[in-house]
Structure formats: C-alpha cells, structure tokens
C-alpha cells in the first residue's frame, strides 16, 4: 500500500476500497498531509485537467470526487489534530431568487477535491448573507452562481457589497446564461464555464505562501 496506490484509486473510482488503502498507508507510517496532498488532492487536479481536455465528463468527475471524499473521511480526524490548513476558503452560493444548484454543487465538489474549504450558503442567497459569510470567515474567494437572466443582476449587487465589506476578497461567477463578457462588465475577478475551470481559477487566485 502506498500513496501512489491511493492516487490511482481516485483515478480508477475505487470508492469502496480507498478507505482501506488510506488506513494501510497510515499504519505504515504515512504522513496525513502527504497522503492528502499527493494521494487525494493531486489526482483531483488530474481529474480537472482531463475534464478540461474532454477525456472525462460529469459522471466520472462526480465519481472521482466521491472517491476522494471517502479517502478524506479517514484522514479528517488526523488533519484536524495536526491543524492542517485548507488551500483556501471559498464561500459559494446561488444568488437571490435562484433555486438552481447543480452547477454550484459540482463546483463545490471540485473545490473540496482541490483542498479548499467551502462554505456553501445554498440557493436563493441574499447579498447580505454573502457579506455575513465574508465577515465570519477568512475568505479568499466568493463564488456566485445564477441560472436565470432574471437573477443575474443580483450577482453585481452581491459583488459590490462583498467587495465593500472586504476589497481583498476575489469574486468568481458562473452559470449557464453567464458569459465571460458579462462577468467582466460587472467587475468579477474570474468567470468559470464549468466546475473544472472554477477549481483551476481558484488555485491560481489563492497563492500559497
């Protein structure tokens, strides 16, 4: 049992086996942080890359994320003990008036797979709630999702209020009707066409010390 086997288990979608593999490596003296970074997060980076290149699709991405999560469940208590910090903190939500969440949930999965801590505010989230989340957490990125042109204007309002609260917070937007041009017009820091792109941008936006 090795970290390489854990890495491969994620890529092979071995959700039922990965817990045993992680336990085995830990029992052989493996370091939790190394298992996390090299055995669980690294293959999710590869999954994102393959998705972006058109070799993997949503079912495989979901399956890989579930597999990674199953491995992470075994590690979590040890990571908490060692006070391991997440890669970054992202607040995610679908804007006010909009109940759609599939895209947001896929983004959440890929961000967690990439080592981010995600504060998921759910759907129909008023701008005040995003601001509150920014106040309560050391947030790096706020991710806004909208699936209706009627709710897209709430993205601009939320962005302005979030940045008024903390100008250092970066805002990323996405959702089926949202375009790169629209994102630029409202002053968003990034636009993501899909979950893999969101994860890629998040890694670029949060520079590791």
């Amino acid at each position: 049992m090795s970290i390489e086997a854990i890495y491969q288990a994620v890529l092979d979608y071995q959700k039922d086996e990965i817990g045993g593999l992680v336990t085995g490596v830990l029992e052989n003296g493996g370091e939790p942080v190394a298992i996390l970074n090299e055995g669980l997060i690294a293959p999710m980076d590869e999954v994102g890359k393959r998705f972006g290149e058109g070799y993997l699709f949503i079912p495989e991405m979901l399956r890989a994320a579930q597999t990674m999560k199953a491995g992470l469940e075994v590690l979590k208590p040890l990571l908490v003990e060692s006070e391991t910090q997440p890669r970054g903190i992202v607040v995610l939500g679908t804007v006010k008036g909009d109940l759609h969440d599939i895209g947001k949930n896929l983004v959440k999965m890929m961000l967690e797979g990439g080592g981010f801590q995600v504060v998921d505010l759910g759907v129909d989230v008023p701008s005040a709630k995003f601001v509150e989340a920014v106040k309560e957490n050391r947030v790096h990125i706020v991710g806004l999702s909208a699936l209706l042109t009627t709710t897209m204007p709430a993205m601009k309002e939320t962005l302005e209020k979030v940045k008024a609260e903390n100008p250092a917070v970066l805002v990323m937007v996405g959702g089926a009707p949202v375009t790169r041009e629209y994102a630029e017009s409202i002053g968003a820091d990034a636009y993501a066409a899909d979950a893999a792109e969101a994860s890629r941008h998040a890694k670029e936006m949060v520079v590791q010390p």
Partner: protein
Amino acid sequence: MIDTKRNFCLSISTKENEGELLGNESILSERTTRIKNAVAFKSPDRVPVVLEYAGFAALVTGTPMAEFLSSPAKATQTMIQAYKLVGDGDAINYGSFSSYGLSYLFAAKVRVPGVDLPSDEIWQVLESELMTREDYDRILDIGWVNFFREFLTERVFNDAEPSLLPENQEGVDVLGLWGEEGVPVLSGGDVTTPFELLCGGRSLEKFFMDLIEIPEKVVAVMDEIVQHLAEGAIRTASDRGYPVAWVGGWRTAPSMISPDMWERFVWPYFRRLVNEVLEAGLIPLLHLDANWERELGRFREFPKGRVIMALDGDTDIFKAKEVLGDHMCLMGDVPATMLAFGTPDEVYAYSSKLIREIGPEGFILQSGCDIPANAKLENVQAMVAAAMDQS
C-alpha cells in the same frame, strides 16, 4: 444605429393593410408555408422568424407572473398580447404555458409564483431525489405508465396548488386563438427521452451514479419507458392540427457524458422518438440545450428536410451549419443574455449575421431557447426587424 421602431412601424402598417385586404387566414397560410419551406430547404421568400417565450409575456405586458400562470386561457391571452407588442413574427413556438406542465418533462416539482414563490418571480424546477434506486424495479414491475401516474400524484403534485394542475384547468383552443391573429403555432406535443425523465426524477448526481453502478438496470428501465413516450405527444399534435412535435434534450447533451455513455443511454432512445414523430407525419422540433457539437453528425441519420434543430447558443450554430447545413433546418440562436442585457444594434447585427451565414435556406431565426422573461422589448423587436428587413 438602427431605428427598430421606424423599421418596424413600416413593417406593421404594411401587414395591417395586407390584413384588411387578405384576411388573417391568408397571412396564417403565408407564414405557415414560409416555415415549411424553410424546413424543407425550398427557397423561402425570406428567412422566417419565430418567437419562443413564456415569462417574457408576463413582464412585457405588466401581468403579474402568478396571474399569467393562473389558467391556460390567461397564459394564451397574455402571450398574444405580448406578440402584439413585439409587432410581428412568423410563428409562435408554443402558444400557451403551464408551470406544472414542466413536471411531465422534468419528473420534478416546480416552484410556482403565488404558491411557493413571491407572485412576481419566475417559476423554477426543483432538483431533488424524488425517485429512488428501488423504483427501477417498481417501474419494471408495474410498467412506466402506471408508475409515472403514481409518481406524479404522490410525490410531485402532493403539495401542488390543485387549481393550477393541468387536469383541473379548462382547456383553451390555442391554435384557434392564435390563428385569429394570423399567427401559426408550431409545437403541439412535447416529448423527451427516458434519460431526461430519470435524471430529473433521481436528481443528476444520483442518476449519474446509476449509469456507472447499475447500467444494465438503467437500460432495462429505459427500454420499458421509451415505448410509452411519443404516443401522447403525437396524438396531441396530430388531433389538434399542429405541424410540429417538440423533442427536447438538455442533460442528454453530449458535453455532459462520455461518447460511450451517450451511445448507450441517449442516442438509441432519442433516435427512436424522432423517428416515431416522423412516421406520424409531423415535423420533429429538436430543442437541444447545452452543447451537442460532438455528435452533430449523427443527426444526418434523419431524412433531409424533415426536421428542425433548435439550438440555444451553447452549441456553435456555425459549426452546426458546416455539419448539417445542407440536411437539417437549423433554428436559433440569439442569446438570452443578449436579449436581456444587450442593445438593439447588437441583436440586429447578430440576427442579420445568422440570416446571412446560416440561411437563407434551411434556417429559422429565433432566440436560443426561450426569450428570457427580462428581455428588453426593443431587443426582441430588433431580432424580428432583422428578419423583416430581408424583404
């Protein structure tokens, strides 16, 4: 800058004069012929423009959304009112609307203004796992028709507003009402694939795991479901005199799943439904949301000049033209975002580009999917003006 009002007014007054002389029946016939010629690759006198909307009718006429949805008669009247505000158009894609009707396509609950949402907000389909993995065996056991009836009653409409359920509402002569205005209505019956129904009922996340973990079971259930799907849509369209049956795909888009999965779980069923509609003598209108580029070539399996492919802007319509331009009538794809947030000049320019490059044969100008509820009236008028300015 184009003056859409000026261009438009000229167009309207011409049609009004024609109306007095020829009657709406004649205009109806002329518009219907224009559309059928576009589908059949016969040179139309100009590229037709079709309007597709529901929520837009409420906002542009100042009708509260809840009121718009209160009855088929109200929805139809409001949509006709909206058409008159736009001023022209060769047809309406669908002539009435029911929010709970979406449950029959999505196998999901719909949140409705005035019931679950503030009365001025737009309805929304709710993603949740209403169907369990155990239900697959139940479907095989009692058959899809019995299962779906039970599923809708007990799990979808259990908290619905009874007065808004289609079976409790008085029907309306949609074709007749629009016909009095000289406007053809295209779609009379809707159908989608077993994949869409199961994905909606199970929720996307759960269903996609079913595809990986229990594929044989899913195929067995899909084989049962598909036998029962097209008949209702065909009967509705044929009995009432609609020329078109709507065949929809959104989560079945090739961009969502691998080629192997698409080949196994989507295409055989999609193809069967389209062929059934063709065999009934109707025009299948393939409403394809999201990105279908990878598999555009497959649509050449359908006979030339018999099918409409309507794209929503996610599939590159110019690529679709390369692959299917001599074979299948394309429809679309003025983007919802442009209609809501763009300018009349932008809409007119893009619509004209579509007419030039996707037309003139085998093309129908339309929005990509619905004209959004918050589309600016002048933008919709600009889209129509681009079509009318050809003559």
